[in-house]
Structure formats: structure tokens, C-alpha cells
């Protein structure tokens, strides 16, 4: 309750001092909660913080439709903030026109999302709770085991449940491509209710590989309970271990998948000496000429 009063005060302050033209947040009206715009200080009493609804994509739509010079404040959680930064990197919005009001997630929410960073960089409302390591969970580890050659049974049976509702795409704050490749008949068969399990989900997962902020919106939306977040968390982990990059932490660092190997390694002109992925990282000694 204290947190809510704190939030109301900040909202009133922003609207009183005209720091922003409107605040995007969750509003409670007539007993139901949904995203809404607070325009006057009197509205601030309607503001609520729970449940978790991602506002970054709604904010993006508002900003695109709004007249020039419109200043929007967004009540954003940690994942919202990271998503907005990634959107700014993709030239979708101008972060200088947005005022971010940081809301720290409560403990139960962090546990529900298995969130590593349930807090924004600057917290205005609430108190930071420590993140949870998603790879400590046994279920997650089981999902992410390497399969043997005859594998794909586990993930095939999971992905097979997909009803191709496109919920994961629509809920994702970072899926902003237009036209979307998943809706293109050249890439995904349009007629099948159950899409080819691999193509649909692998294309989706890899498109988001270097921009996923692990908000968990895809998994929460999925009506078939597909653990989509597990794939994304794995890709994030690989990116972090190999390139030291985590999407959404700042706007300066660009995705390592778009850069070269020289700048990254810090060693001048030194490239990994390998010729083919069959013998990774090792220069081949025996040349093909000797064989014939």
C-alpha cells in the first residue's frame, strides 16, 4: 500500500510540474485493471502497479501516433525499460521524449518470471529485490540438455502443441517488424493450423536472439504452455558468456552479432585461425592437395 501511495505522489508531481504530457500506466476503473493514459493530476488516484502488464509496446504505438513534441512518461518495470532501450537501438523511438518512472518488481513477481534483473536502473517506486538465477531450476536444465543425434523428441513433443495463434509474436515487446516474416507464406506454411514445429519457433527464437530482454511475455501469453522463455534464456546466456553482451542494459553497446571479431577481442589484427566448423578453432595442417 505504501508503494502505491509513493507511485501516486510521483505521478501527481510529474503531471503538476508538466514534466510529461501524459503518464502511461495501469489504471483501475470500475473494478477492472488495464493500461491507460493519465492526463490530469486528479487521474493519479486511479494508478495501480499490479499485475504485470508490459507497457513498452503500447507506449511505442502511442508515441508513433502522437504529434511531435509529445512527452510521455511510462511506469516501467525492469523488463519494460530494457525493451524500450532495445527499441531505441532499433530506431523505433526516441528515448529523450520519454520519461521513465522505474518500478521495482515485488518478490513474488520476480519468482514468477524467474527474472535475473527484476528492477530498472533507477528505481522510483518500490524497493529492489535480488534477481533469481533461472538456471538453478532443475526443470529448466532438463529442458536445455543437449540432445543426442536421434533427439528432437522432447522439443518436438513440446512445440507440437503450438496452435499458431501468433500470441508470442504479438505479446513480445520487441517484435516490431512489418511485414512479419512469420506471417509470410514463403517462410511459414499459412494453411497448417499446426505449423512445422521447428521452422516457426526457431525463426522466432533466432530473430530475437540478440534483443530478447527476458520479460517472459511470450511464455505468459502462450495458450499451449510452451516454455519459450527457456530457449531465449539459453541464447541470452550464450551471448553473455561468449561476447559479454546483455540486451537492453544500455543504448551504447550494439549487438555483437553485428560487429566484427577484431574489435571485440581487443587484440589487434588477431583473428581466430580456423578454416571450417568441422575442425573448430584449429588451423588444418594436412592440406587437401596431399590426398590426391
Amino acid at each position, binding site marked *: 500500500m505504501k508503494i502505491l501511495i509513493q507511485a501516486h505522489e510521483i505521478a501527481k508531481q510529474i503531471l503538476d510540474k508538466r514534466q510529461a504530457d501524459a503518464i502511461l500506466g495501469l489504471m483501475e476503473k470500475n473494478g477492472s485493471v488495464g493500461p491507460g493514459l493519465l492526463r490530469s493530476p486528479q487521474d493519479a488516484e486511479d494508478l495501480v502497479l499490479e499485475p504485470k502488464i508490459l507497457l513498452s509496446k503500447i507506449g511505442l504505438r502511442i508515441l508513433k501516433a502522437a504529434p511531435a513534441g509529445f512527452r510521455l512518461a511510462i511506469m516501467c518495470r525492469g523488463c519494460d525499460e530494457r525493451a524500450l532501450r532495445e527499441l531505441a537501438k532499433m530506431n523505433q523511438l526516441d528515448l529523450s521524449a520519454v520519461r521513465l518512472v522505474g518500478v521495482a518488481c515485488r518478490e513474488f513477481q520476480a519468482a514468477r518470471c524467474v527474472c535475473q534483473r527484476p528492477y530498472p536502473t533507477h528505481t522510483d517506486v518500490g524497493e529492489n529485490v535480488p534477481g533469481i538465477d533461472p538456471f538453478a531450476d532443475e526443470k529448466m536444465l532438463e529442458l536445455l540438455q543437449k540432445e543426442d543425434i536421434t533427439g528432437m523428441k522432447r522439443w518436438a513433443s513440446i512445440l507440437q502443441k503450438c496452435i499458431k495463434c501468433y500470441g508470442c509474436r504479438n505479446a513480445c515487446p520487441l517484435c516490431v517488424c512489418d511485414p512479419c516474416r512469420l506471417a509470410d507464406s514463403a517462410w511459414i506454411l499459412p494453411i497448417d493450423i499446426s505449423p512445422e514445429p521447428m521452422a516457426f519457433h526457431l525463426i522466432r527464437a533466432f530473430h530475437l536472439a540478440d534483443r530478447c530482454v527476458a520479460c517472459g511475455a511470450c511464455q505468459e501469453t502462450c495458450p499451449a504452455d510452451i516454455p519459450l522463455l527457456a530457449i531465449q534464456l539459453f541464447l541470452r546466456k550464450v551471448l553473455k558468456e561468449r561476447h559479454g553482451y546483455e540486451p537492453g542494459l544500455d543504448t551504447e553497446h550494439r549487438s555483437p552479432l553485428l560487429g566484427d571479431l577484431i574489435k571485440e577481442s581487443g587484440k589487434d589484427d588477431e583473428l581466430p585461425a580456423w578454416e571450417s*566448423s568441422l575442425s573448430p578453432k584449429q588451423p588444418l595442417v594436412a592440406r587437401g592437395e596431399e590426398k590426391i
Partner: protein
Amino acid sequence: MLVFACKWCGFIGADGAGRKRIPLTPHFRLIPVECAASVEPDVIIRALADGIDGIAIFGCHLGGCRYNQANHMAVKRNELLQDLFDIIGVDRRRLMVSWGTAHEPFQFERDIYRFQQILEKLPPMDHLLKPPTFQTNRL
């Protein structure tokens, strides 16, 4: 198998292999592309989903790319894609990435040969993709 070769190095190397009359396996189809980095991961996924057993990408040596450092991106992207294949249950060796120059037809032949040897041991791709229940539903 499907082979994507960059038109500056890999493709000329493959062409050279033909001109030198090096015996090559007939089980591949070669598609010349502008650069190894222009082969998107989506293309690879789409090809595997269509039942292609393996995809090979040939490009210029690291540092020798005609388009600045484009093939560095290809290295990182394909490595990440291979990791994704690992957990999803597709063998990571189904995607081969190889770097050479236009004067290395023997390397092209060797890599294609070794790639084929690997793929022969793996089960065919289309059986993995369509689970049995999926097929009976359609009948």
C-alpha cells in the same frame, strides 16, 4: 545437402574444383550468394525444415571478405545458431561453415567430402521434424 558459396571465393573455388576434374560427390546443390553473411539463419532453418540434411556455407577467409567484416558476423551468427540447434535436438554438425579462397578447390572438395561422411551417419532430417502424431492427424 545444400551448399551456399560466396561468389568471390567459395564459388570460384567450387568452380575450380570442377575445372580441375576433382571427383566430387553428386549429392549437393550449390547456390552462389553475394556474401556468406547474406545467408540468413532463417534460410538455414527453412531449408532444414524442408528436409534438407545439411547446409554448408563457404566464404572468404576471415579478414578477406569483400564486404568489410561481413563474414565475422556470419561466424558469430552461425555459431549461435548451432548452439540453438544443440538444445532443440538438431545435430549442430548439420550446419557447416568453411572459409577459403578462390584458389582452394581442394579445400572445397575436402570439406564437402568430410561433410558428407558426417551426414551419412545422421538420420534423415524429415523424420525428425514431423513427429508421428502430427502425421496421423493429417491422414
